[in-house]
């Protein structure tokens, strides 16, 4: 372990690390544009120059490996001057169009200019080099070559991460510019990440462009619900909590504006696939269900819950416990599925299609997985893959009148469409049952036959945990409020359990403590230990491995 001195403080550094990595670990800020921990080292921006004792020139901290007894200073006048000059060169031909630039507010040029430069430009605005502005690089990305500082993060992303090599630097010297050969589209399934890695406004997202200014947005750390990988992301949504102010920015509109990859080395590094990045649009794809309905009539949810409980109880009394069952899905949180299992006394299933066979199978070699449900592993951990045998068999049982009443919770897949045969099976299942309760997020026509139709909170509207394909428990957070009377499924289930005589909290954290007490792999976990980067790994259930 080499010992390295940074600004007079001695730190232990792992061998092979570079100065900037050590500084990041101990919390010393070194300005950088081209360095990104997940895409390889370039050393082109010259922002991270530091003074190392014994070397005549300043060294780039991102490309210099630490050696034993290295003495680094990041706070001398020489370093400040070098950063200031680097900034002046980077901004030499910058068009200063912050007022129309989508990056402003989160632009590294703005931040570092205020922190390290503050110079007057020596180049008149009218004489700056003009380049191509605002043209489509691909379906998701727009490029503005005037704003580009040639840090080549996007180039290295396509070279080292996706291995598709689309974006390249063309021409040399002052004429260098980023582009794609023959303007072919940047259409790999991870293209949205180049917008995330771009430190300036050169690459902007066509999806988010001009929708909102970033300082109006509030970020909530969460987990993608698009597939069983469970990539960490940040949901950027309207900032004002409730009411008042500008119509578009109030959370009564409950608007999510974008999702951005959040770094978690264990799961997704910094990346998101494009499907997952845009998966929040699924919530707007169909009309949402705002109010509960009983035989087509609009009713408050709290008035219906006693009826629902009484109906289930009477059917249980008449036909036995086995005649009442529930169908969750891999879109529901662990908390909701666990409480559902408690209320329906274990007669719960979650398999709509082939989740269990698919949930560990990768769709490509980076992130995506074939199972588009985020919590299949969690549902298996909770023991929901029991004797009921999935949706198809439940439909058969209902048609044979072995099951008389069911609670069906349906949340559409965030990525892609649900298979048509699943919808058809659900329709037939509802028709075969004597009594059915459907809790769903959207106003689906096939659910109108249900005895009671309850609105349910969707992804990003409820707090809970998902267990990803590798058994990592991660917290998905509430970013926006659910529409109308909609409530998270675990709240509905807790209310039902309270009517059944148990004292159950509607707080997902408390429910998770109960899970941790009962489910073997989750022992010792709670929301604090899971935190924002995910909790300890629980083993894959044996029946799946067999």
């Amino acid at each position, binding site marked *: 372990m080499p010992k390295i001195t940074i600004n007079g403080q001695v730190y232990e550094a792992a061998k092979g690390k570079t100065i900037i990595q050590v500084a990041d670990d101990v919390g010393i800020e070194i300005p950088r544009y081209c360095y990104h921990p997940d895409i390889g080292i370039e050393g082109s921006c010259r922002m991270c120059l530091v003074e190392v004792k014994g070397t005549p020139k300043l060294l780039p901290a991102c490309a210099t490996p630490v050696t034993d007894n290295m003495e680094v200073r990041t706070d001398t006048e020489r370093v400040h001057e070098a950063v200031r000059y680097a900034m002046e060169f980077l901004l030499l031909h910058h068009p200063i169009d912050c*007022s129309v630039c989508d990056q402003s507010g989160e632009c590294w040029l703005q931040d570092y200019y205020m922190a390290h*430069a503050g110079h*007057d430009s020596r180049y008149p605005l009218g004489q700056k080099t003009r380049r191509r502005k605002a043209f489509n690089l691909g379906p998701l990305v727009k490029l503005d070559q005037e704003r580009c500082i040639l840090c080549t993060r996007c180039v290295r992303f396509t070279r080292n991460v996706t291995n598709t090599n689309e974006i390249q630097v063309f021409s040399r010297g002052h004429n260098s510019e980023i582009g794609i050969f023959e303007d072919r589209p940047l259409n790999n399934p991870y293209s949205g990440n180049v917008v995330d890695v771009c430190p300036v406004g050169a690459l902007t997202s066509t999806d988010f*462009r001009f929708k909102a200014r970033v300082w109006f947005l509030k970020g909530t750390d969460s987990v993608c619900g698009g597939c069983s990988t469970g990539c960490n992301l940040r949901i950027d949504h309207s900032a004002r909590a409730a009411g008042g102010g500008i119509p578009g920015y109030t959370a009564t509109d409950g608007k999510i504006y974008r999702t951005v990859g959040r770094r978690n080395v264990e799961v997704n590094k910094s990346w998101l696939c494009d499907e997952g990045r845009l998966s929040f649009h699924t919530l707007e794809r169909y009309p949402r269900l705002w109010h509960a309905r009983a035989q087509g009539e609009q009713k408050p949810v709290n008035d219906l819950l006693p009826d629902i409980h009484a109906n289930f109880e009477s059917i249980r009394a008449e036909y036995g416990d086995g005649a009442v069952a529930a169908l969750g899905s891999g879109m529901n949180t662990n908390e909701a599925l666990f409480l559902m299992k408690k209320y329906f006394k274990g007669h719960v299933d979650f398999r709509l299609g082939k989740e269990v066979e698919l949930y560990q199978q990768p769709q490509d070699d980076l992130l995506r997985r074939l199972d588009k449900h985020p919590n299949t592993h969690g549902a298996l951990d909770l023991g929901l893959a029991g004797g009921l045998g999935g949706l198809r068999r439940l439909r058969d049982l209902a048609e044979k009148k072995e099951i008389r009443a069911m609670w069906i919770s349906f949340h559409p897949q965030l990525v892609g469409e649900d298979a048509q045969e699943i919808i058809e099976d659900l329709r037939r299942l509802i028709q075969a049952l004597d009594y059915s309760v459907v809790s769903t997020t959207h106003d689906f026509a096939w659910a109108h036959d249900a005895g009671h139709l309850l609105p349910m909170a969707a992804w990003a509207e409820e707090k809970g945990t998902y267990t990803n394909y590798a058994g990592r428990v991660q917290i998905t957070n509430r970013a926006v409020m659910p529409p109308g009377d909609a409530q998270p499924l675990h709240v509905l289930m807790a209310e039902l359990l309270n009517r059944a005589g148990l004292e159950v909290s509607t707080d997902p954290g408390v429910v998770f403590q109960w899970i941790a007490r009962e489910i073997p792999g989750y022992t010792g976990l709670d929301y604090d230990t899971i935190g924002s980067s995910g909790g300890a790994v629980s083993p894959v259930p044996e029946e799946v491995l067999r």
Partner: protein
Amino acid sequence: MTPVSGGYAVDVPTINVSDRARRENATVWSTFRAFGVTLRRFYTSLFKGDIPTINYPEESRPYSERFRGTHILTVRDDGSLKCVACYMCATICPAECIYIEAGEHPNPEIEKFPTRFDIDMMRCIYCGFCVDACPEEAIIMSREHHQSVYERSETLWGIEKLMARPGIDAKGPGYRPNRPMAEARIFNKPEQPVCPFPSHLEERHPAVLYESMIRRRG
């Protein structure tokens, strides 16, 4: 002329009302003096034309050049909005009365423009911060302040109403501190040589020195 107890910063003249009342009110003579004032004013108004009142809705007194009335969205020479939907005004607005939706401009040089620009005139407090914040002098204020409408929804002014209405030409613009900056063409394109509204403000605004205005570090 003694300061009133209560601590005014300046000497406040005081009138002993009860003393004066005893002197004037108790006499018949003061009654006729009052008639005299009325008759004198009657005479000057009727025969000399010295009338202090005006027929208000038809006539009005000139307002200050810096009057902060209802807003104007200024336009380029081709008639399109100068606004680039940077949201500076909506950000600074303490009343949160400005609502903007931005769109992609067909010209990539302009890039961004507002597809919707609404000001809730009932919410607005006419502080002029939006005008101060605007980097393009796209929003300025007028000398109008009349807001009589039949329905509350009419006080939500959209782009059309903010861009052009008869009162702008009749009364002229009001508060527009960034005009020297706009005329210095720091941000202006060459196709817009002059401002459509003349102004009498001649002193250089600090924003003219926009680039050197930023604090030099070290």
